[in-house]
Structure formats: structure tokens, C-alpha cells
């Protein structure tokens, strides 16, 4: 630097050494004197900071070792015995000698490095965890990190870290290249790299360049490579990344790695194209992005606002400053940092303004237009697109089409009413009949249309199942369990929305099963089971539902334990718990608050409980049931609607009101002569094709006055199949079948049981659609 600065440093260093030495002597008499410890630590710390201003790595290395020892003393990790005090005093004497050399010669002698290493080694040997030994191992085994590893770090940060490494600190570079399919195996790469202790910095880069278009972009493929720098020991790093060691490379960040011209000029320009901001500005902008990401804070936003305003003034970007003011005002008005964040993100990679007249639009692109920086569509390029028989269509278009067809289906339901009016009001039977004929054709066409559009949206459940073999294998290996996964019915199809939404609940249930249900091989053998557990994923279609079953042959759920845990966690009271049947107790696992940190394991924990599974499934109109036999395993069954769209129902008259019944349940309609109705005990039954079918009088269930039975026609009975059982519903009259879009019961009606939803009739009335599964 310059002579004045060095002179000042020599003076300061002598004062600090004096302070440290007298503090250490105080400490030798009373090792618990906190004031003295802090004083000595701060003196050495300041000395380290100042020494970094000069090109004296030997000095910095030695002071740094002393600081590390004092840090451990300060935190109580090390007690300060006279041996340590001696070592520290020796080292300080050596530092004093270095300072004398600097004062006299302006530089350190040739053997300074060796001497400093010797003293620093003696100090580090006293550190808890024996870092010295580890350092030696690393030095022996690990090669220095290649320069490209460090290319992802900002220049300033990289320089500072290299300076530390040159100063003698053991800095490790961790290169983590997660498996491409890691998202399917439950690995969270970011969490994994964050687990590395004593992180100094992390850089993320794509391992292959991002393609310019989204056509072949696969969001499920991990294209990241992480580089982390840490002061932790190699063992600590390996310990923290046990599960991902295959994907990890370790190097030292040592002198050798530090290229003398640190920002390698051939590398830098492609990585950071000429931008408006430059190195300093980019650091400022990225820091602000990071700071505001923590949430809206008026004071902070104001400070960021002033700061970026200054930055833009500094860069003479007056137009951008106006836009910045607007974004800022928006953010303040909305109490949301989003507009500001968007501006900053664009500013971050804004190119150098080529002409002064260019500036306005790009940074405030309020329209959701494609990114202004995106290259033009590849249409003009010479590569012809391969002819393909599949058509990629935006999902939104399919959804729109489906909604329109849904509307059409409902609208056509008005025609039968029209036909009746033609007959009854206008007295034209012929017109009525013609309308009905037209209706029949329209009905058939819309049904086909609907089927076709639904086919487009149908996906096999294999889409979600396929990630499980890998996932189960990996998790089982981590848990030292042996599990065979059996998957059945993978080609069962359901609506895309349903299939895609099934992923998370399934993952959660499978994890639970592996973690809590399936036992270790030894435990299994002791219980007389085969050491390899079986986990069965099955899917099949059941009427208008797709059923997914996750069955394991593990230890099952212990209702007694569930009761006590639920009581402990305040989910239910002791009295309530005791009153529950075993099945009801098991169902408690779906209550919010049941699964909490107390049973967090690294796999199924994370504070998300089965209640989330339940709410996800219910949101989609499905249901979850779990049954378990203690010692024999657990079966969880998700029953999801096949499609989110149109349901075909039959309208019936019960007690003077109209109700809908999903047609998938209806086996047949019949009229029973009262004489064929028999009684078994107090229940009415009748015999249908050699099967005894119980009869249920719907007016008794739903209220209303039963209509008088026309003796000539008999009782109207709708024979239905509900979860494998056949029942006969005694109603007053049959009406037409129709396709409807079911709207779920919301608001005050949300908790009313027995209905799967409502729909509008062609004449504007609201129709309640019965949920037979819930009723019977």
C-alpha cells in the first residue's frame, strides 16, 4: 500500500500486542475473566484485520491461528491453561518480531512462512477437534480446487476467500453435483449443501447451459452444480453430506489454487457479459434483492429505495430512476416488495445501454410479454422441426375447451324443460317431441365430445408411480431397511389435475410407511416375518373413482399409542380419547397438530402431518381412509374422482323435492308391487335376481311427504351399488338423467354431510346431488 499506512500499522500492531500480552497475563491468574478474554480476542482480531491490508500472508496466518484459539477460549470450548498461555505468548512474540522486520525492512524475511507455519501449527494443535491433524490430512490428500470452481463467486468475495486461504486458514471447496433425478428421490440439493457446516459462501451454476427455449426444458431434471466454501474439516463436511457423498468432490482452497491473476481474464467475460452495473453495482443490487426477499419492511424499503436511487444517479440513468420511483411507490402502496424485486432482478442483468435513447421500456415490462432479453423464436433458424404426430398444446387451451363443453352440457339440459313447456303450455305435442329428438342427438354428441376432451386430459397414474421405485430404494437404504415395492394398476388413468396432485400425498404416505410402519429386518425376523418388507402401491378404477392403495406389512398403527400421543399434543382430551373406538383413534392421525416436531425424523418429519394429506385429497374431492392391524401392517386408501369435470346424474323426486344421484351408482330402475316387499326383522327387503336387496325409504332419510303409491305402477325403486353392496332406494318418481358440473358445498353448507355437491337445473333451480357413499 503505502509507507504511511505501514507506519500506522506498525504502531497499531505494537499497541495491540501490548494489550494482548497484558491481558493474557491477567488471564493466567484468572482464566475466567471475561473482560480480559474479550479484550485479548478483540486485539488479536483487529490485528488480523489490519494485517490483511498488507501482503504478509505469514503474519496473517499466525495471527489467525491465535484468533481461532482465543475464539474457542471465548466460547468456552477450550480452557485457558498455562500451556496455552505460553503458546499464545510465544506466538505474539513472534508476531512482534515480524512487526520489527516490517518496520525495519518493509517486508518479511524469507523464512517467515516456515516460522509462521510452525507456530500456527502448534496453536492449531490445541484447538478442539484437532484441526491440525485434519489440515495435514487434507493437505496430503486433497488437490487444490481448479480455478473454474471459483468462477461462480463474485470477484470481491473470491478474493477475500483466497486471501483467507493464503493467510493459512484451511478453506475447503465442496463441489456438489446432485443426481439429475434427485428431485424424484426426495433429495433436496439446496438443503443438502446448506447442511455443510461453517459455510462461507455457496455458488450455484447450471451444469449444462440453459437452453434458449422452454421446449426441451425439463423442470424435473436437476441441472445444478453447487460450489460451497467452508472452514469446516473434511470429516465434518463428509459427515454432513453422508447421503450425497457420491455426488461430492472436495478440494482445498490453498495457495496453489490461487492463480496469481485471480480473475482469470479469459473466463470472466463469457460468465459476466458487459452489464450496466459492473462488479460493485451487481453486488449492491443482488444484496438488496436478498435483503428485501425477507419480507416487506417499510423502513428497509425506504433505505433500499434511496440507495438504488443513488446508484442509478451514479450511473447517470435518469430514466431508470423514474421507473425505480414508480416501482417503489407501487411496492409501498401494495405493502409488497414484488414490484421492487422485479425491477432489481431486471436491473441485475440489464445490458450496457448502447444508445442514450434506448432506455425506457425494458426494465419495467409491466406486460407479461415474453422476456425482452429472450432470443427470437427459433422459427427462422435453418433446422426444420421434425414432423411429429403429437401436438403440444398449452394446458390452458384444453381447460378452456373443457369448460366450454361443460357449459354446453349444462345448457342442453334446458331442452327437456323446453319440450315440456311446448307440450303443456303451448299444447304442441309434436313440437315437444321434435325438441326431445333434437335433444337426444345433442346429448349423445356432447357426451362424446366430453369423453374425447377428458381423454386428452387423462394420464396414467404411472406418471406419479414411476418415481417411487427409486425413492423407496433410497429411503430404505438410508434407514437400513429392506423393502420390496410392488406396483399394480399403473395404467389406470385419471384426470391430469388429479394425477399430478397425487404426488405429494402419496410421497408423504409412503415416507410415513417406510419410516414408521416398516421395521428393521432384525425386528421383522424376531416377529416371525420375512426380513424384506413389502410395500404395495395399487391403483384401480371403481365406478367414477380411481382408488390408490398404499399397503405395507409393517408394525401397524397402535391405537393406544395414537390415543396417548393425541392427548399429549392436545388434539383431544383424555376422556375423548378413551371414548374413541380403535378405528376412530387411528383416524386421529389426520387431525391438524397430530404430527409435530416430536416425531420428526429426517424423512417423514418436516412438521407436515397427515392432515395435509387429508386436506389435499379433500380439496380434489377425494377421500382418505386408513385401516391398520397391529403387527400386520397398514393400508391407506385414497379414493379420488376420475375427473374433475362433468358428472352424469339421475334426477329423482323424493318427498316433493328433486335430488340428483350419480349415475355410476345406479344399477337399474324398477317398480315394485308392494306385495313383493318382504320384511326381515324390521327391515324391508326384496329379491332381485336371487339377491336379497335391502330397501331404504328415502323420505324417511331426507324428510318430506312420500307421494301416494299408484297401486297400478308400484313403488319406484332405484337399485344402486355402493361400495360393493346393492341397495334399493325407494323414491317417489324417476326423472331424467343429465350431465352436470358439480359445485362443491361451500360456506354454511360445507359441513352438511351426505351431499357431494350442487348443480343448477336447466330451469334455474338448485339441485342437491346425494353422496351415497356417505349416506350408506
Amino acid at each position, binding site marked *: 500500500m503505502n509507507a504511511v499506512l505501514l507506519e*500506522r500499522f506498525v504502531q497499531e500492531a505494537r499497541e495491540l500486542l501490548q494489550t494482548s500480552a497484558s491481558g493474557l497475563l491477567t488471564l493466567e491468574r484468572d482464566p475466567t475473566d471475561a473482560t480480559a478474554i474479550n479484550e485479548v480476542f478483540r486485539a488479536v482480531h483487529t490485528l488480523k*484485520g*489490519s494485517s490483511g*491490508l498488507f501482503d504478509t500472508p505469514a503474519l496473517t496466518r499466525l495471527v489467525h491461528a491465535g484468533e481461532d484459539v482465543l475464539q474457542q477460549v471465548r466460547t468456552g470450548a477450550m480452557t485457558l491453561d498455562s500451556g496455552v498461555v505460553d503458546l499464545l505468548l510465544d506466538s505474539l512474540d513472534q508476531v512482534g518480531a515480524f512487526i520489527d522486520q516490517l518496520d525495519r525492512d518493509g517486508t518479511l524475511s524469507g523464512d517467515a512462512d516456515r516460522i509462521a507455519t510452525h507456530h500456527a501449527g502448534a496453536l492449531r494443535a490445541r484447538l478442539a477437534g484437532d484441526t491440525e491433524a485434519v489440515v495435514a490430512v487434507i493437505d496430503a490428500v486433497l488437490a487444490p480446487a481448479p480455478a473454474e470452481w471459483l468462477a461462480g463467486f463474485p470477484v*470481491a468475495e473470491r478474493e477475500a476467500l483466497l486471501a483467507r486461504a493464503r493467510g493459512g486458514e484451511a478453506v475447503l471447496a465442496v463441489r456438489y453435483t446432485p443426481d439429475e433425478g434427485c428431485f424424484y428421490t426426495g433429495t433436496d440439493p439446496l438443503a443438502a449443501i446448506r447442511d455443510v457446516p461453517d*459455510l462461507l459462501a455457496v455458488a450455484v451454476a447450471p451444469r449444462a447451459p440453459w437452453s434458449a427455449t422452454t421446449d426441451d426444458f425439463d423442470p424435473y431434471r436437476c441441472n445444478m452444480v453447487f460450489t460451497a466454501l467452508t472452514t469446516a474439516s473434511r470429516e465434518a463436511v463428509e459427515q454432513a453430506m453422508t447421503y450425497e457423498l457420491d455426488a461430492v468432490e472436495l478440494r482445498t482452497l490453498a495457495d496453489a489454487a490461487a492463480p496469481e491473476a485471480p480473475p482469470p481474464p479469459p473466463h470472466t467475460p463469457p460468465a459476466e457479459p458487459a452489464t450496466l452495473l459492473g462488479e460493485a453495482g451487481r453486488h449492491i443490487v443482488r444484496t438488496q434483492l436478498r435483503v428485501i426477499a425477507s419480507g416487506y419492511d417499510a423502513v428497509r424499503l425506504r433505505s433500499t429505495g434511496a440507495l438504488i436511487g*443513488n*446508484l442509478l444517479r451514479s*450511473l447517470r440513468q435518469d430514466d431508470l430512476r423514474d421507473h425505480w420511483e414508480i416501482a417503489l411507490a407501487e411496492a409501498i402502496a401494495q405493502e409488497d416488495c414484488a414490484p421492487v424485486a422485479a425491477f432489481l432482478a431486471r436491473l441485475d442483468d440489464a445490458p450496457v445501454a448502447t444508445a442514450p435513447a434506448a432506455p425506457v421500456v425494458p426494465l419495467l415490462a409491466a406486460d407479461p410479454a415474453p422476456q425482452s432479453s429472450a432470443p427470437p423464436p427459433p422459427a427462422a433458424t435453418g433446422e426444420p422441426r421434425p414432423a411429429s404426430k403429437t401436438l403440444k398444446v398449452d394446458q390452458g387451451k384444453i381447460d378452456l375447451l373443457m369448460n366450454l363443453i361443460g357449459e354446453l352440457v349444462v345448457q342442453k339440459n334446458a331442452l327437456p324443460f323446453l319440450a315440456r313447456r311446448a307440450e303443456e303450455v303451448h299444447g304442441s305435442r309434436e313440437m315437444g317431441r321434435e325438441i326431445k329428438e333434437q335433444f337426444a342427438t345433442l346429448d349423445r354428441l356432447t357426451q362424446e365430445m366430453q369423453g374425447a376432451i377428458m381423454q386428452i386430459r387423462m394420464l396414467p397414474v404411472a406418471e406419479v408411480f414411476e418415481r417411487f421405485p427409486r425413492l423407496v430404494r433410497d429411503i430404505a437404504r438410508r434407514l437400513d431397511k429392506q423393502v420390496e415395492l410392488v406396483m399394480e394398476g399403473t395404467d389406470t388413468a385419471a384426470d391430469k389435475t388429479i394425477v399430478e396432485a397425487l404426488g405429494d400425498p402419496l410421497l408423504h404416505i409412503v415416507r410415513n410407511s417406510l419410516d414408521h410402519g416398516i421395521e428393521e429386518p432384525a425386528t421383522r425376523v424376531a416377529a416371525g416375518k420375512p426380513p424384506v418388507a413389502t410395500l404395495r402401491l395399487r391403483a384401480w378404477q371403481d365406478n367414477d373413482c380411481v382408488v390408490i392403495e398404499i399397503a405395507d406389512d409393517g408394525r401397524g398403527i397402535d391405537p393406544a399409542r395414537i390415543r396417548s400421543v393425541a392427548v399429549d399434543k392436545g388434539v383431544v382430551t383424555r376422556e375423548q380419547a378413551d371414548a374413541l373406538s380403535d378405528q376412530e383413534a387411528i383416524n386421529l392421525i389426520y387431525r391438524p397438530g397430530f404430527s409435530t416436531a416430536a416425531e420428526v425424523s429426517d424423512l417423514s418429519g418436516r412438521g407436515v402431518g397427515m392432515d395435509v394429506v387429508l386436506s389435499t385429497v379433500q380439496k380434489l374431492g377425494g377421500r382418505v381412509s386408513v385401516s391398520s392391524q397391529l403387527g400386520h401392517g397398514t393400508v391407506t386408501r385414497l379414493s379420488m374422482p376420475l375427473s374433475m369435470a362433468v358428472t352424469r346424474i339421475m334426477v329423482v323426486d323424493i318427498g316433493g323435492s328433486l335430488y340428483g344421484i350419480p349415475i355410476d351408482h345406479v344399477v337399474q330402475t324398477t317398480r315394485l308391487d308392494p306385495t313383493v316387499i318382504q320384511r326381515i326383522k324390521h327391515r324391508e327387503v326384496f329379491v332381485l335376481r336371487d339377491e336379497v336387496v335391502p330397501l331404504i325409504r328415502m323420505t324417511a332419510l331426507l324428510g318430506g311427504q312420500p307421494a301416494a303409491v299408484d297401486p297400478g305402477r308400484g313403488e319406484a325403486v332405484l337399485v344402486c351399488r355402493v361400495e360393493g353392496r346393492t341397495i334399493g332406494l325407494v323414491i317417489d318418481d324417476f326423472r331424467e338423467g343429465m350431465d352436470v358440473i358439480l359445485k362443491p358445498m361451500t360456506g354454511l353448507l360445507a359441513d352438511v354431510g351426505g351431499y357431494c355437491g350442487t348443480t343448477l337445473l336447466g330451469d334455474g333451480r338448485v339441485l342437491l346431488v346425494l353422496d351415497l357413499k356417505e349416506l350408506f
Partner: protein
Amino acid sequence: MTKPHVNGKRVLVVDDGMTTRLYYRDVLETAGFGVEEAVNGVEGLERALMGAFDLLIVDVNMPKMDGYEMIAQVRVDPALHDIPIITISTEAGERDADRAYSAGANLYMVKPADPALLTETAQMLTGVEMAR
């Protein structure tokens, strides 16, 4: 040393290391900033509240009151809500940076800050128009 073209902006440097303070003074005065110094958080807070500064550069580890505490106290004063604050520390860890940001710092730099980078940063934060 050529005498600087004065840019009219004032910087308060708060650091207990006198060499470091001199270094910042050197770098910043060369770029035309007016520089004042404080040797710990208590003194730094006092001076920040009194004088009209355009930028604070604050060390983290200082006697009497550390940098985090000082920054938090500075931000309490409505007049100082939007003054740019840089923390400069020997620790390159993310955790220290986060702590500085949550105290109210706008930027975190690692010691020893490169002179050119420090100059450019200070100019940007205070709105000094940079040479093209």
C-alpha cells in the same frame, strides 16, 4: 499523491483498528470523499446522529458497542432510515452477512476491501456520478 477532486459527500468510518481507518480514509479521500472516523460503536452512533453523513462504513467487531447494535440504533432515528450503511468484516460467512442485513445494513463487504471496489461502491451508494 494527487489531491482529490472533492465530491461533496461525507463518509463516517467506524472501526476500532486505526490502520484500517487510515486505509479507508486514504482510499475514500483519494476518490474525493470527506472522511470522519469513530473508534467504536458508541462513538460511531453519536457521530452518525449528529453529523450529516452520506454513507456509514461500520466494522462488526468493536469494543463498547458492536457494529450490529450500532446499525440497529442508527436505523431507529427516522432521519437516518435511508442512509446507506456498509458493514465490513473479516468474516466471510453468510450468517454474519444476514445478521448485518437484519440489523439494517445495506451491504456487507469482506476485509480487506479492494480499493477500487470500495471506491466504486461508495460512489454508487452516495450517488456520485461516475466518470464514463
